[in-house]
């Protein structure tokens, strides 16, 4: 590369010679494992350990800061899934992600690469003996970092959306409780302060009763009326903004369905996914079998006990019995 060339010329020349651009275009055959309009993932032909993946931007960018932020964001947002897939396939709990920027850092390709390397043993740990920093050196670093890092980070436009931790489906009940507690905290301001004891009771009450959850979520108006009518509810919901709570529950459901989407590949999850065929079966069964239908409308909890151990139990797997009971009650209320 001669010094007289413009950056554009250097880049064009680099791109022409770049083996990774040729892999992306298909000119050089490679083992692509994922691709979209911004990102391509391939298996390294010289793996540090089996399953070693390379994440590349589709366009030619030699260094990380040269990649436009939305491309970077799109690439790094998917890292979770690449990393998860590798852990599942290689059957390991650990991997290391590695980026080298610049020749002195060991960058060997002209195309930006993110290595994802299974870390089953020492090979991909990247540990080196620490050095001793002089306190003056450290103080200088601290001073300039505290000054410049906030300015640089403020430039980031893609900020994470939610502050609630995303957790596995097995912990979703825990999350519900947590969210319910947050709701009550948020609603304290406008009215009398609910004490923590009552907050806990309220969270438990909502969590344990799916019908209450449903009404609260879908018909906050009706629920407010219900509270006014019933002394026990009035006491429990004193100082609580029902509409805010309803909104929170809806949001909570959305985030839960998001988690469900993300774990779709989980066999356990697939087993409980209600198929259209299953719905059809359940529908015709309830239409034909008056006794079963009436039992379901009358008491969904008893119904669950009733079908336990029978061949119908399998048919109702994954179906929300309480919601179904409500819907049927509405549909058959004239009979």
């Amino acid at each position: 590369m001669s010094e007289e060339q413009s950056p554009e010329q250097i880049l064009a020349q680099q791109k022409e010679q770049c083996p990774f651009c040729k892999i992306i275009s298909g000119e050089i055959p490679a083992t692509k494992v994922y691709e979209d309009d911004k990102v391509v993932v391939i298996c390294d032909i010289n793996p540090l350990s089996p399953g070693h993946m390379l994440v590349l931007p589709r366009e030619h960018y030699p260094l990380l800061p040269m990649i436009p932020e939305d491309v970077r964001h799109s690439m790094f947002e998917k890292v979770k899934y690449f990393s998860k897939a590798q852990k599942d396939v290689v059957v390991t709990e650990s991997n290391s992600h590695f980026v080298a920027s610049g020749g002195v850092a060991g960058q060997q390709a002209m195309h930006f690469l993110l290595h994802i390397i299974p870390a089953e043993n020492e090979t991909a740990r990247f540990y080196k003996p620490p050095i001793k920093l002089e306190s003056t050196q450290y103080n200088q670093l601290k001073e300039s970092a505290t000054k410049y890092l906030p300015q640089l980070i403020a430039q980031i436009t893609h900020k994470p959306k939610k502050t609630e931790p995303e957790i596995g489906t097995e912990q979703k009940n825990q999350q519900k409780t947590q969210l319910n507690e947050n709701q009550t905290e948020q609603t304290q301001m406008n009215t009398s302060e609910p004490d923590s004891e009552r907050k806990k009771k309220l969270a438990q009450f909502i969590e344990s009763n799916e019908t209450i959850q449903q009404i609260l979520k879908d018909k906050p108006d009706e629920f407010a009326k219900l509270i006014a009518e019933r002394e026990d509810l009035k006491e429990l919901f004193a100082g609580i903004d029902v509409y805010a709570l309803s909104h929170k529950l809806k949001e909570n459901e959305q985030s839960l369905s998001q988690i469900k989407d993300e774990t779709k590949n989980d066999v356990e999850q697939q087993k409980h996914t209600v198929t259209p065929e299953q719905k059809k079966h359940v529908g015709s069964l309830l239409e034909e079998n008056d006794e079963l239908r009436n039992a379901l409308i009358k008491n969904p909890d008893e119904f669950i006990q009733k079908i336990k151990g029978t061949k119908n139990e399998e048919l109702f797997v994954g179906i929300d019995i309480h919601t179904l009971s409500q819907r049927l009650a509405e549909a058959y209320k004239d009979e």
Partner: protein
Amino acid sequence: MSDILYEDAFIKIKGDDDPITLGHLTIYPTQDVTQLEELPADVIAYMYEVANKCATFLFEGLKAQGTNIILYNGPNTHKKVHLAVIARTEGDGIDLHWQPTQGDPAKVNDMASKLKSALIIGEQKKVELKAQEPQTQKQSVSDNMYYHELRRLP
């Protein structure tokens, strides 16, 4: 050595307790996790974005000639998930790279097809992700200050 240099709702940045060079920063997610996959995808993306800004700081503020970004994910690498951003200079005596040795093509192909099928979920996810993305910002190549680094690349 463990002063917090920056903190927000999602991450905190510290000087590494066992620095391997002058300018070894560590980014921790606010939520302590041992597996990266426990974090929301947008928080992971944000950690990397912040790592990029840390690298910019090391280039500009510490006159680093290169940087390494390493994410430690899982118990074989570290107790807690974190990202390290390490300033590199000529002759710092650190060799983080490895000697490429060719893998058995059959094994690589086999691994690739397994990974591909494991990533079907990723492709479904793609549709959702794409809808949220803004248009690519048009940026002139010469405007980007990193292009003076081009001549240093191999």
